[in-house]
Every structure is written in structure tokens, then in C-alpha cells.
């Protein structure tokens, strides 16, 4: 991910040396001649909409105050720590892990699952329980129920993703890990059964990202798993040993550069509790073995079929377009989303889809390695994606930092998606290297200015005052059920953070809890479009951000609109439902084919906020 510009210096002293130059030139004859000659007959341009450049007006004055966030993790009882070695001598020690928000007992309150991580030494002794699960008792108080919940399988946890794979009404938990994954079937009331082997999803290797999506729309949600590099725990490349184990002159862990990558996995859900690994047949196995990390499904081409984005570290990203027949075509290069606009394959980590510009299309935001801007790929429709990292002003503040967990979310409920990014280096050794951001890094909060650009508001939101840490996963959801989106963060080797959103803007908002009947029960892939002054949409996703799980309920800020003119639900089954004149400020439960089945008011801010 460091950019070394290779220069071949030719010292042409006498004519003989010209011969060497000639060798080089002849070697690239095809390249050179084609370069300077016309590009052959230019076919008629494909039918594209006429180019329209929107003149960017000066940003409107935003009247809503920037919400402030408070870390209430300790008071909330989130005291168990993620596990990690201090020195991180091996790449496998730097990548964990994710964090998730889901309601494991259907009591309407979000519970929290954190990946535990491990270390090489501990893994050789059997590893650590993959996750910690906290039950949300009431009023932002949580209890560690990992043991009672039956989540004691040991290993080396990396990421989490949630769906209801057996359509029994209880949300199930998938955990990726180095050396094997785990699938925990929820029997109800947050009691889980380890069905990994029976389901056939143990996998292996260095699994990182996971995302549930019903790509064949058969009502059974399928599972994609990305994998990173090949690591043999008994033959680990020695810290600082080769040129691939140095960064900015300092000896560091080896990789991913110079290491063999791993293929990716797609598990088709047979609907009988078992899965079939079909990545090759489906064309998503990644034979190039790029270094896969964050993954997420999203219908970027608006054809009703879920497509898949895979963020690859130091290698080009994948964008698998759903061919609607069980196979996919990687469109990333053609669509301009494999690399940034300079053609650099960035160190891509976390991912989020969002219609931040109300274009009716999902754009993709990717967090990147140090000295690289976090990248916003604006979805232009038929013209593909455009890298607007710098034009959107998301790239500049992120340049020194290494970004991980991220999600588009509406922090002040004004109807426009904002962005949060947490950071942290992979190398603790950077603390003593001049010209590098340190290991512990700040978080970035970007407010949507509604003209395609963002303003960095970390100071105003007070997250700039929080301690610097090396963070990884970030999960977003309304933990207090008060209509504001909160954030939980995985801090490497430390207990998590819970950033409580104290938004005081009096904007209206709404939450939709979707339940599929013909579609998969957790409604993964369902799209809700809300018309309330402006038109917004979002989709239910089982896995996103960096190896993390966001609230499955869809949240929309509605600004001053106290009701929605209409709400459309497009279920994965293909069924659509339209609801008219829906009042704002409620948590709605919509059942496929049955409309709104339940509504609950939002809580007030807890008076006794810890």
C-alpha cells in the first residue's frame, strides 16, 4: 500500500548503452506503438444520458447542531476486553475484529456481540472464546451472557454477521475466524446451538468479512465469506525479516504484501439447515487470491437482485454483479470501483453502501490504509462509479490515518446520510516513526452538506476529545430506541466503546423492523424507500462496515416532516408494498404481505443517562 514509484535509470554513456534502452523499448513495442497510434476504430458511443455537470452551489447553512457523542461503555457494563498481543508481530494479530448489534431475544432492544480476538501464543493453546455477548437488560445496562448463551467455542474470532438462516424467527450469529468459522443457531431467548459442522460452514484459513444475502432469492439467506492471507501458525514469517516486513523504515510484522492470499467462499443455503460451498460455480471465488476484508451486499444497479462488494487490502476490490442465475460477473474494473481514480489498488478495509446524494442509487464508501484517502465511489448509473474522495472532502482529513469501521448514518435525523470512520494503525511500531500516524488514532465524523461534500465535525461532536485508540469494527444502531443512531466500537486489546448519540435536533425520524414471510425472515436485502419531502432508501444488510453487524432495523431521519407521504417496501421475494401517509416518530414492524403489524413510540432520552 505504500506507493513506490519504480524508476529505471538508464545511464547512457556511449552508444552501446542505447542498445540496452533499445531492448527495453523493443520489449514494450506493442505497448508503445499502440500508445502513440490512434486507438483503432472508435465505435459508436454507448447510449448514455447526456452529461450534466451540476454546478455546486455554496453549501446551505445547516441549522441543526452537530450531535455530541458520549462514551458510556463502562457504565453500561461493557467491560470485557478484546484480546490482542501488544507487539503484534504477525499480521494475524492485527486484523481482529468486528462488533455487532442485534436483538437476540426479540425483546425490542439491541444486544451487543463483540469478537474477542486472540494472539499467536494463546491460539496455540487452543485460542479464546470467539465472541462476548451482552444482553441489553434495560436503560442501557448490559450483562455478559456469553457462557449462558452457549457461545464458548474457542478459536480466533475476526468478524460477525447476523441473519435468520433457518427462518424460525430468531436471529442467528455467524462468526468468522482464523482457523475456522462458527455458526450459532439461535434457539430463542439468546440461547444458541453451535451448528457449524452440521451446516458445513466451518471453512478454514484466515476468514475475515462475512455477509448474508439471498442472492438467488429463494427465501433462504446465503452467506459470503472473504478471506485474507495464507497464514501457517507454525511457520510464521519472522517479524522484520524481509522487505515485506518493513514499513517506513521500521521493522514490522510481515504482510499482507509478499504473502499468498486466500480465495473467498460463498455458501448457498439449502433450506434444510445445511449449506453448499458454491463460490467457484458462482464466479466469486477470487482465484487471484486478493486480500479480502470488508464485504457487503447491495443492489447497486437497482435490478432487484443483490450484488456483492468485497474490499480487498492492497489489491483491487471486487464488485460482483448478480447475473440473476446463480452466477456473478466481476464488474469492478469496468465500473471504476476496483481502484481509485489514480489507478491505485488501495488498502481497503471497511465498506458501506448509501444513497448519500439522493440520486436513487447506492454509492460505496471504503475506508483505506494510511497515506491513502478514504474513498467515496459515487454511483453514476450506466457510467459506473466515480472516485470523489477528494471532491467530497472525505479524503483529505483521512489521508494520514488508517480507517476501519464505517457506516453511512443520519446522525441528526435531517434526512441526509453522514459518515463515521474509526481508525488505528496495524503497526504499534509506528509510534516511534517520524512521518507516520501513530498506532492509536482519532475517529472522524463527516457531516453531509447536501451538495455532494462533507464537513469534518469531529471536534463539534466531541469525539475528537475521546482517547486515541486503535479501533477496528464499528456497528451502528438505535441502542436506546430513542430515534438516534448510536455507535459501538471495537478497541483492539481493550473493552469496547459505546458512543451514545445525544442529538438534540428536533427532527422527525422513523425505524422499520421488517419481517419476511415468503422472503427470508430477517428480510436481508429488503429495500425501503421513504418519501417525506425528499426521497431516501436503504436496504437491510447482514454484515457491513468492518467485519461488523449494524442494527437490522432501517433508520431514516425525516427532518421537519412529521409524516411520510409514502413508504415502499421491496421484499427480496419481489413483492412490493406501498404504505401511504405514515406518521413519523415510531418504530414500525412491517410483515411481508401484511403491512404494518406493530408500532411503538420512541423512548425519551433516558433521564439517568449514565
Amino acid at each position, binding site marked *: 500500500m505504500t*506507493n*513506490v*514509484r*519504480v524508476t*529505471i*535509470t*538508464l*545511464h547512457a*554513456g*556511449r*552508444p*552501446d*548503452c542505447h542498445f*540496452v534502452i533499445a*531492448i527495453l523499448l*523493443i*520489449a*514494450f513495442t*506493442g*505497448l*508503445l506503438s*499502440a*500508445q*502513440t497510434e490512434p*486507438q*483503432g476504430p*472508435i*465505435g459508436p*458511443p*454507448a*447510449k*448514455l444520458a447526456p452529461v450534466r*455537470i451540476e454546478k*455546486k452551489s455554496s453549501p446551505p447553512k445547516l441549522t441543526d447542531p452537530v450531535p455530541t457523542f458520549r462514551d458510556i461503555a463502562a457504565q453500561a457494563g461493557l467491560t470485557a476486553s478484546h484480546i490482542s498481543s501488544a507487539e503484534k508481530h504477525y499480521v494475524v494479530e492485527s486484523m481482529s475484529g468486528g462488533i455487532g448489534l442485534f436483538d437476540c431475544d426479540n425483546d425490542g432492544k439491541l444486544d451487543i456481540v463483540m469478537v474477542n480476538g486472540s494472539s499467536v501464543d494463546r491460539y496455540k493453546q487452543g485460542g479464546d472464546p470467539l465472541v462476548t455477548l451482552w444482553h441489553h437488560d434495560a436503560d442501557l445496562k448490559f450483562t455478559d451472557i456469553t457462557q449462558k448463551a452457549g457461545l464458548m467455542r474457542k478459536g480466533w474470532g475476526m468478524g460477525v454477521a447476523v441473519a435468520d438462516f433457518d427462518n424460525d424467527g430468531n436471529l442467528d450469529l455467524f462468526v468468522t475466524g482464523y482457523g475456522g468459522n462458527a455458526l450459532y443457531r439461535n434457539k430463542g431467548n439468546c440461547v444458541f446451538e453451535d451448528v457449524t459442522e452440521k451446516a458445513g460452514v466451518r471453512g478454514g484459513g484466515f476468514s475475515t468479512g462475512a455477509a448474508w444475502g439471498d442472492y438467488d432469492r429463494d427465501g433462504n439467506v446465503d452467506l459470503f465469506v472473504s478471506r485474507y492471507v495464507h497464514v501457517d501458525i507454525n511457520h510464521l514469517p519472522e517479524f522484520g525479516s524481509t*522487505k515485506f516486513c518493513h514499513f517506513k523504515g521500521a521493522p514490522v510484522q510481515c504482510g499482507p504484501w509478499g504473502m499468498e492470499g486466500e480465495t473467498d467462499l460463498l455458501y448457498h443455503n439449502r433450506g434444510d439447515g445445511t449449506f453448499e460451498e458454491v463460490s467457484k460455480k458462482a464466479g466469486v471465488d477470487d482465484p487471484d487470491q486478493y486480500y479480502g476484508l470488508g464485504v457487503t451486499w447491495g443492489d447497486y444497479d437497482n435490478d432487484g437482485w443483490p450484488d456483492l462488494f468485497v474490499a480487498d487490502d492492497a489489491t483491487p476490490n471486487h464488485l460482483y454483479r448478480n447475473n440473476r442465475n446463480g452466477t456473478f460477473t466481476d464488474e469492478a*474494473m469496468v465500473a*471504476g470501483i476496483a*481502484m*481509485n*481514480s*489514480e*489507478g*491505485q489498488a488501495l488498502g481497503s478495509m471497511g465498506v458501506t453502501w448509501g444513497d448519500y446524494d439522493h440520486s436513487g442509487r447506492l454509492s460505496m464508501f471504503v475506508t483505506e490504509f494510511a*497515506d*491513502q*484517502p478514504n474513498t467515496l465511489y459515487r454511483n*453514476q448509473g450506466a*457510467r*459506473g462509479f*466515480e472516485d470523489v474522495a*477528494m*471532491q467530497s*472532502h472525505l479524503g*483529505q*482529513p483521512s489521508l*494520514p490515518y488508517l480507517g476501519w469501521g464505517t457506516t453511512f448514518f443520519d446522525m441528526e435525523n435531517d434526512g441526509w446520510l453522514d459518515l463515521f470512520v474509526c481508525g488505528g494503525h496495524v503497526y504499534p511500531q509506528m509510534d516511534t516513526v*517520524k*512521518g*507516520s500516524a501513530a498506532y492509536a488514532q482519532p475517529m472522524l465524523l463527516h457531516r453531509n452538506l447536501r451538495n455532494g*461534500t462533507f464537513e469534518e465535525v469531529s471536534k463539534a461532536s466531541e469525539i475528537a476529545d475521546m482517547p486515541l485508540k486503535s479501533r477496528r469494527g464499528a456497528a451502528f444502531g438505535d441502542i436506546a430506541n430513542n430515534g438516534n443512531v448510536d455507535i459501538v466500537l471495537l478497541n483492539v486489546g481493550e473493552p469496547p466503546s459505546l458512543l451514545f448519540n445525544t442529538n438534540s435536533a428536533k427532527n422527525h425520524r422513523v425505524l422499520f423492523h421488517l419481517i419476511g414471510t415468503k422472503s427470508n425472515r430477517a428480510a436481508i436485502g429488503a429495500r425501503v424507500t421513504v418519501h417525506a419531502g425528499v426521497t431516501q432508501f436503504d436496504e437491510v444488510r447482514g454484515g457491513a462496515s468492518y467485519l461488523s453487524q449494524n442494527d437490522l432495523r432501517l433508520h431514516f431521519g425525516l427532518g421537519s416532516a412529521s409524516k411520510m407521504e409514502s413508504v415502499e417496501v421491496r421484499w427480496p421475494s419481489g413483492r412490493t408494498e406501498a404504505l401511504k401517509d405514515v406518521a413519523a416518530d415510531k418504530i414500525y414492524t412491517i410483515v411481508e404481505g401484511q403491512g404494518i403489524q406493530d408500532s411503538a413510540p420512541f423512548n425519551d432520552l433516558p433521564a439517568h443517562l449514565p
Partner: protein
Amino acid sequence: MTKKFTIAFIAIFVLALLVALVGAAAPANPQEAARLNNIGVAYMNQQLFEKGLKAFEEAAAKDPNLKVTALNRGVALLNLQRVEEAKALLEKASKDDPNDPHAFYSLGLYYKNSSDPEAAVADFRRVTEIDPNDADTWYFLGSTYAQLKQFPEAISAFEHALKIDPLHASAQFGLARAYQQSGQADPAHEAMKKFQYITQNKLGSPISLAYGEQGKYSRAEESPVAAEKVLPQIPVKFVDVTKGAGLTSRPSVRPTKDGASFAGPGACFLDYDNDGNIDLFLPDDGTQGSMSLYHNLGNGKFEDVTKNRPCRKSRQSHPPSPQ
């Protein structure tokens, strides 16, 4: 005693006053300014932009006439995201010296990354007038046109960059994207294949957006004052390691008196096997009967691999053409 102390005290005071006065009225100190400026450049190279800015400000205080410090302050401020101050300084610098490409280039990058790509086009065009042979400028000009959806202009600028540097990976990528976005799938495909050929064979790398890597005119500039007057005297010694490095297998035709073996027509360093270590190629100077190829073993030593490699005057040694 007291009197002596008083006199001494007054003397010291007067002396101090004199020093202060002389200091305040000190004439511009171009060498000290240049030294401070160059320290600032070094800080910038370590991405310590605050420290760089401070050094440039100190340099400007020593010699307000040192033009380069104004430019460099602008570059530092730009990297510190203090864009309004940066813009003002850079615009002034571009007016003060309209034949220096640096300020125009930085302004071009700034406008490209803000909401004014048209202004960026004007600035990059100005740079191409001053220096028509900088591929990076043509690349960014093309990239800005692409941003403006002026794809024919973008294609033309990218092709210009590639004429100057056929291995300019970013220009090749930009060309592919511009064709793609203007609906010309076939040339887009061709251009993308070339891009992949360039990058996969490590013939060129794309431009990075980190400081200093967006083209030579994007960096803070060292002072034109002669370096030997400015830089501290660091003892630099060159030691002949030819023998120890194993570069002696080639018959020496004109041994120099200090024992160096080579007196050929030149030497070419290149990493022929992409292992990250620069190898050494020596052409035949007419007396050897053969060219020589030394493989860099990465430990300060070279191995003569002339015989192992197809290193003859033949066209057999082409790398594969782009598929």
C-alpha cells in the same frame, strides 16, 4: 563592590540593548533563511506539516525576499487543510513569479479537489505552458477534464502524458476510465489491458495522493541558494566496495590505479527479476565480447549471472506482449 556590580550591570544591559537593536535591524539573512527553508522541506518530507510550516515562517522572517518560502508556506497550509490561507499565499506566489510552475500546480490540485475544476484546468494548462514535458501535469489535467465529464479533452491530455511517459500508470488508467465513461468500450478495454500490463509487471506505479507523490511540482521546494553554503557539513565518504560486492568477474581492460575494475561505456541499474533489489547490467564496450549481468543478492553482494540469462544480442528476450 556595589559600584563595580552596578557598572558591570549597566555594561551588560547596554550590551544586551545593542545586541537587541542590532538584531532587530538585522539585514536580511538569505543564507539562514535558505537553511531554515530547507529544514522545512525536510519536515514536509516526513509529513510533519506543522513543523514544516513553522520553519518556512521562520525562514520568511529571516529573509522576506526569499520567494520560495511563500510558496512553501502555501504548500504546507494546503496539507494542513488550512485551504483559505494556502490559496491566498499560492495565488500571490503565482502572480509574483508567473513562470514558476509550482504555485500553479498546487493551486490546480487544490481546485481539482474543491468545487472548482474549471479553475484547476486553467492552472494545470498554465503549468503545461511553462513546462510542457511533465507527464504528471498532463495526467492531472486529464483527470480534471474527466471530473468535468469533458472526456475527449481528458483522453487527449492522458494521451499527451503517455507520450511523455509511456509507463505512466495513472494516465493509462485515466485513459481507460475516460473511454469507458464516454461509452467507448473497446478502446477502454485496450487501455485497461495496458494499464494492467504496466502495473502487474511493475513497470510503473500509479500516483499516490500522499504528500510529495502527486508530481514534482507538488512538493515544497528547496532554496535556490547554493547548498554548500547552507547545509551543515555532514561528512560523506565514498568507499570503493567493488571487490567486496563481487563485481570483479568481468575482465578488466583498463584498470584504474586505485583498483576499480570497470571502465566500460556506462552501466544500467535495473531490477530485471522484480525481486526488489536493483541489479546491474553492463553493456559490451567492444572489448569484452559480451555484456554482463550481475544479480543483486540483497546483502551487498552481486552474482555474475551473465551465462545463466539469455543476455545476448537477440530479440528473444522480449517480455510477453500484453494479452
